C-alpha cells in the first residue's frame, strides 16, 4: 500500500486554469471519486507525494507568488503611462508621497498618505487658483502591474463619460509610493471638488493586477475612509473596465448632485429622490 496518491500529470498553472477543456490533465484518484475541483477555485485535489506537493503544483504556486511579489516591489512604468495618456490627449503631472522608496512605503502607510512639499507646490502652481471639478490620481499602491495594465484603459473609458456630465478634469496625477488617502492633499492642492484615486490593490495569488477606484467628494487631508466610495477588483477576469467606468461615472454623478460621498451617499440620493429635487 503506497502512500503516494498520484496526482494529475502536470498541474497547470493556476492562472491558465479556468475551465479550459481539451487540455485537461488526467484526474487524480481522489477526483475520480470526489470531483472536488468542479466545486471550488481553491487548490483542492492537488495530489501529494508523502507530505510534498507534486512538483508541478509546487512550481505553479511559486510562480503565482513571484508574480504577486513582483507587482508589489517593481515600480510603475511612468514614462510609458505618460506616453499612452498623451496619445489619448491627456496631460500628466507627477507627484510623490513622503515615502522615499518601496521599503519605506510598505512599512510606513502614514507617509504614503502625505504629499511631499515640492509636489504640493507643483500642483498649486498648475491649478493657478482656478480649481476644477475632478482630479484623477493614479496611485501605484501595492501593485504596479494593476496600474501598468488597467489604469490607462480605465481613464480612456471614464474621461468621455465625465465629459458628458459636463465636468472638467485636471491633468492626470501620477503618484508614486502612494496610498489611497494621498488623493486628499492632491485634490485639495488642485482645488478639485472630487477625487478619483485609481490604486493598485494588494495582490492575491490568483490575481496580481486588480485596480481599485476610490472616489471622495470634497477632498482634504483627514477625510475618514467612510467618506469614500470604492469600486474594486477592476481587471481582466474581474470587474471589466467598461463596467467599472460606468459605475464610477454613476457614483460621480450622484456625488455632484448631493455633495456627499461614502457611506452617507445612498441615503443622500434617496432623500433627493423623495424630495423631488
Amino acid at each position, binding site marked *: 500500500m503506497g502512500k503516494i496518491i498520484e496526482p494529475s500529470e502536470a498541474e497547470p498553472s493556476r492562472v491558465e486554469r479556468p475551465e479550459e477543456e481539451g487540455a485537461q490533465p488526467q484526474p487524480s484518484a481522489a477526483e475520480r471519486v*470526489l470531483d472536488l475541483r468542479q466545486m*471550488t477555485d*481553491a*487548490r483542492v485535489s492537488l495530489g501529494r507525494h508523502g*507530505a510534498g506537493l507534486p512538483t508541478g503544483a509546487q512550481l505553479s504556486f511559486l510562480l503565482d*507568488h513571484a508574480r504577486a511579489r513582483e507587482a508589489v516591489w517593481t515600480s510603475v512604468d511612468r514614462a510609458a503611462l505618460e506616453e499612452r495618456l498623451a496619445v489619448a490627449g491627456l496631460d500628466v503631472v507627477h507627484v510623490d508621497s513622503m515615502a522615499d522608496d518601496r521599503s519605506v512605503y510598505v*512599512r510606513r502607510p502614514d507617509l504614503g498618505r502625505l504629499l511631499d512639499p515640492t509636489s504640493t507646490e507643483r500642483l498649486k502652481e498648475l491649478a493657478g487658483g482656478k480649481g476644477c471639478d475632478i482630479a484623477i490620481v493614479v496611485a501605484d499602491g501595492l501593485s504596479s502591474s494593476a496600474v501598468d495594465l488597467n489604469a490607462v484603459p480605465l481613464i480612456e473609458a471614464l474621461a468621455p463619460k465625465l465629459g458628458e456630465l459636463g465636468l472638467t478634469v485636471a491633468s492626470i496625477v501620477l503618484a508614486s509610493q502612494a496610498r489611497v488617502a494621498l488623493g486628499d492633499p492632491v485634490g485639495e492642492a488642485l482645488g478639485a471638488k472630487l477625487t478619483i484615486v485609481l490604486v493598485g490593490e494588494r495582490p*492575491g*495569488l490568483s490575481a496580481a493586477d486588480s485596480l481599485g477606484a476610490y472616489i471622495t467628494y470634497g477632498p482634504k487631508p483627514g477625510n475618514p475612509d467612510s467618506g469614500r466610495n470604492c469600486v474594486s477588483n477592476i481587471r481582466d477576469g474581474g470587474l471589466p473596465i467598461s463596467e467599472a467606468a460606468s459605475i464610477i461615472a454613476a457614483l460621480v454623478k450622484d456625488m455632484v448632485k448631493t455633495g456627499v460621498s461614502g457611506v452617507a451617499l445612498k441615503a443622500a440620493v434617496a432623500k433627493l429622490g423623495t424630495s423631488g429635487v
Partner: protein
Amino acid sequence: MSFTTTIEQTVFRFKDLKDLLAKATPERSGDQLAGIAAEGPVERLAAQMALADLPLKAFLAEEVIPSEDDEVSRLIAERHDSAAFSAISSLTVGELREWLLKPETTHDRLEAVTWGLTPEMVAAVSKIMRLQDMIAVSAKRQVVTRFRNTIGLAGRLSTRNQPNHPTDDSRGIIASAIDGLLMGSGDAVIGVNPATDSVEDYVRIVSLLDELREKLAIPTQTCCLGHVTTAIHAIEQGAPVDLVFQSVAGSEKANRGFGIDLALLKEAHEAGRSLKRGMPGANVMYFETGQGAALSADAHFGVDQQTMEARAYAVAREFDPLLVNTVVGFIGPEYLFNGKQIIRAGIEDHFCGKLLGLPMGVDVCYTNHADADQEDMDTLLTLLCAANVNFVITVPGADDIMLNYQSLSHHDAVYCRETLKRPPAPEFEAWLSQIGLIDCDGALIGEPAALSSYLRSSNLIGA
C-alpha cells in the same frame, strides 16, 4: 517611574514601564510605525538590561494603561492571584527567565503560577528570551481543552480545517473541507471565515458543517467565524452552533473597534454553553488575536504591540476557550515586516498564551506584500511543533481564496504527522483509522468511500 541603564558611561533613560517594554522589544515594524521602538540595537539592549533587573512586583505597582480608562486593565488587576504569584514574587524579570528554563520548573509548577502571572510580566520576560528559550519553556506547558475531542495533549498536534470560499458557496465550502479531511485535517475545528456577516448565511454555514460532521460521525467541532452578535442571533434561532468565535484585542478601545466588550463576550459565552452540544463542561469559545490589532485601531496607548497582544490573552482566558490562535502574519509588513519578524512573533505569541493558560494555536501565515515566503512558514511550523503548539490552520494548497493570504496547506499537516511524529487528537485519530483514512501506523492510505458517498447523498444545505 523612570528607569536607567549605564553602558560604558552612556546613560540610557526610559521614562516609564511602557517605554521600557517598547524599547526592550526585539525589532519589528509596528513599533517603529508607532514611534515607540528603540533607536537601535544598543538602546534596545540597554532597555533589555534594565528590564531584566526589574522586580516582577513592579508590574503590580504600575499599569501600562490605567484601570480607570480601560476595562482590560481592570480585568488584569482583578484576576491577579497573589497566592499563585507567591512562588515567583521575589524574582526579577531576568530571574523569571532562569526559573522558567530550569528543569525543576515542571509543567505542574508552570500551571500553578498561571493566574499569578500578568500579561505584562509574560510579555516582559519573552523580550529577553531567544526563540530556543521560549520553545523550551512552551514545550513543558500543556493546556488541554475539550469539546467532542481532546486538544493539546503532549506530543500531538491538532489542525483547523479552514474551508473558506469567496462567496460562502455551500458546495465550495464542502469541497475544501473534504479536501482537508482527506489529508487528516480538522480535529481542532472545521471553521469557516464567512464573506458576509448576515445571520442567514451564518445559520446556513453552521448547518452545512454540522451535517457534514454528523453524517460522517467526525469527533470534532465546527464553527462559523462571524461576529459574536451574529452567533447569539443564530443561537436564538436554534442553529447548531458548536463554538462561538470572536476576534479580541488588548484594550477596551480596540475591542470596541471589534464591536465587543467584556459584557458582550460573557453573554456570548453563556449562549454558547446553554446549547450543551459538547461533552459536559466543554470549552465553547474560539478567539483569534494578532500583534498590531490595537495599533491599527489607534488603541494601543503607546504600548508596544507584543505587550498589547499578551493583554488580549487576559480577555481570552476569562472565557475558558477551546481554541485561541494568533493570526500572526496576516496583518501585513507595517506591523511585522518579514519572515524573521513573523517567526519571532509566532513563537512569542504561543509562549505568552501558554504561560497565561491558553490552549494556544497559531495561524502560520503571510501576505504577498510582506517579505516572507513558504520557507519561512516551514521554519515557523517546525519550531511550533517543537514548542508543543496546540493547533495550526490548514487550507487547500496554502492559498486562502477568500481572505487572499497564504496559510499552511493540508499537506503541511501530513508533514507534521509523518516527519515530526505529531498525531492528531486521540478521538480524531481513532476516527481516521475507523473510516479507513489511515493505517495502523497512522499513515494516510487513501480516500474512503464514506466521503464520496456523503458528497453524492448530501443535498448540501443552501446549495
